[in-house]
């Protein structure tokens, strides 16, 4: 299978893996939107969507169909190409994150060892950061190209919010990296699986900061200022309709799932099922258990995101900036300092 100096089987294997992961992510996202509505409903003592199909399970399909059937409007004053590029970029950036997430241990199929990770980049976390900060371009471009002052203001808010919280997020991560000593997500997870405690035990404050910042990065309530309906009408996607709007809304959920996956991998042992020795079962079954475990962890995180969204109201803009610059960053620095001191004292 080696032709033109390429291992074609490897490429096919990766292509299949990419397709599976992207499709699964989209499917899960579809049902996350449904889950969001259900969780909101249950927390508010209502039944939620329950008409389309059994228990309303076909609701996301109906929603998607509705969005596709809607009329596509591009404002005449909008910058057309950027207007189209915006949602595409938002979606691409949020989906690209899944490239470095280790979904489980290796599979052994057809005499090959298939790593359940699209790319084991040795700077995995930096890659995640790069892609995440790309995501804000989607919002920025979309908001600017709409040629609408509310969209523009919302895009500016989104950008400044993302930049402010990325600093604290990065600082929280540095502390984690100091204790793990690697940037590769696969190694970080593997270290947590092989006997150690999960990283959250070593980095509770770091995790808290990372979690809050992730919430801010995903534009989730209480940090959903870019979409503040009462001040900015509808935010950066105000001029969007049809599936372009759908892409923006969808990208938010993909982001949520991806940040849940990253948090689960970095702080909660990734595919590690606690109190279970993977070596007692066949490697393929162990890999499948790993995938299931990671998915369950992701679902729990997503539920936490939703639970918070339907509990607390939105921050005011100055509160958001105060929290980001005056609380999160000093706390993250402190966390880094403590971690450094502890590592030094152990040497």
């Amino acid at each position, binding site marked *: 299978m080696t032709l033109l100096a390429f291992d074609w089987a490897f490429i096919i294997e990766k292509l299949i893996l990419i397709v599976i992961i992207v499709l699964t992510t989209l499917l899960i996202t579809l049902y996350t939107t449904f889950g969001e509505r259900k969780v909101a409903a*249950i*927390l*508010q*003592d*209502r*039944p939620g969507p*329950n008409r389309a199909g059994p228990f309303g399970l076909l609701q996301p399909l109906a929603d998607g169909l509705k969005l596709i059937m809607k009329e596509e409007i591009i404002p005449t004053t909008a910058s057309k190409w950027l207007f189209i590029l915006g949602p595409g970029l938002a979606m691409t950036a949020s989906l690209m994150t899944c490239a470095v997430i280790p979904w489980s241990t290796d599979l052994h199929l057809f005499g090959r060892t298939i790593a359940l990770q699209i790319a084991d980049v040795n700077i995995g976390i930096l890659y995640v950061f790069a892609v995440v900060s790309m995501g804000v371009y989607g919002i920025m471009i979309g908001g600017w190209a709409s040629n609408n002052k509310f969209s523009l203001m919302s895009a500016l808010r989104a950008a400044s919010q993302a930049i402010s919280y990325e600093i604290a997020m990065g600082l929280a991560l540095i502390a984690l990296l100091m204790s793990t000593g690697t940037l590769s997500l696969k190694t970080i997870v593997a270290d947590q699986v092989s006997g150690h405690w999960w990283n959250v035990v070593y980095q509770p404050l770091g995790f*808290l900061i990372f979690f809050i910042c992730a919430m801010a990065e995903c534009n989730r309530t209480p940090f959903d200022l870019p979409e503040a309906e009462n001040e900015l009408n509808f935010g950066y996607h105000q001029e969007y309709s049809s599936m372009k709007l759908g892409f923006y809304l969808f990208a938010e959920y993909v982001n949520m799932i991806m940040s849940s996956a990253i948090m689960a991998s970095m702080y909660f042992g990734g595919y590690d099922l606690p109190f279970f020795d993977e070596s007692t079962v066949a490697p393929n079954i162990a890999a499948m258990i790993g995938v299931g475990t990671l998915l369950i962890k992701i679902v729990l995180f997503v539920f936490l995101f939703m*639970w*918070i969204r*339907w*509990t*607390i109201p939105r921050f005011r803009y100055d509160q958001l900036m105060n929290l980001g610059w005056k*609380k999160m960053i000093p706390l993250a620095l402190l966390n880094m300092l403590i971690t450094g001191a502890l590592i030094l004292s152990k040497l």
Partner: protein
Amino acid sequence: MQALTHKSFAVNRKPMTFWERLYLINIIKGMLITFSHMFKKQPTVRYPEQKREFSPVFRGLHVLNRDEQGRENCTACGLCAVACPAEAITMEAAERQEGEEHLYKEEKYAAKYEINMLRCIFCGLCEEACPKDAIYLSETFAPANYTRKGFIYDKNDLLIPNTLTNATALAKAKGVEA
């Protein structure tokens, strides 16, 4: 001044302590409250399958009444139309002919009797005005319709089924509406 209720409190303007400023504890408290709502009983009535009972004084769609021999009570006197504050009722009177005594109770009857359900405010004044026991407000409401015309109910829609010739329909109507 004496407080009117026990629900008003002076605003607490004490500066927040460090832990309060972190919000975390209060956020967790709030989250516990919302979590507890997951186990609460939903007050929702799942409407098309499950219907809530109307109160006994509910004023719904009108019915035109018949007497115990199945004859129409209405004499087209027009008092209901006069009483109607929304001017929803129109009617045309006609004289009873020979051989129609089994259809109409008195010598004069309503040849046409229409109520515009979009105008009607379901106040029940027609019911109060009627001297002949002919119009009543039932316990159902007007179902949705595609056209405005569909909300103009004529005699066919309003008359209750004949006691003598169509007893089963009457029983059915009573069973649904009771």
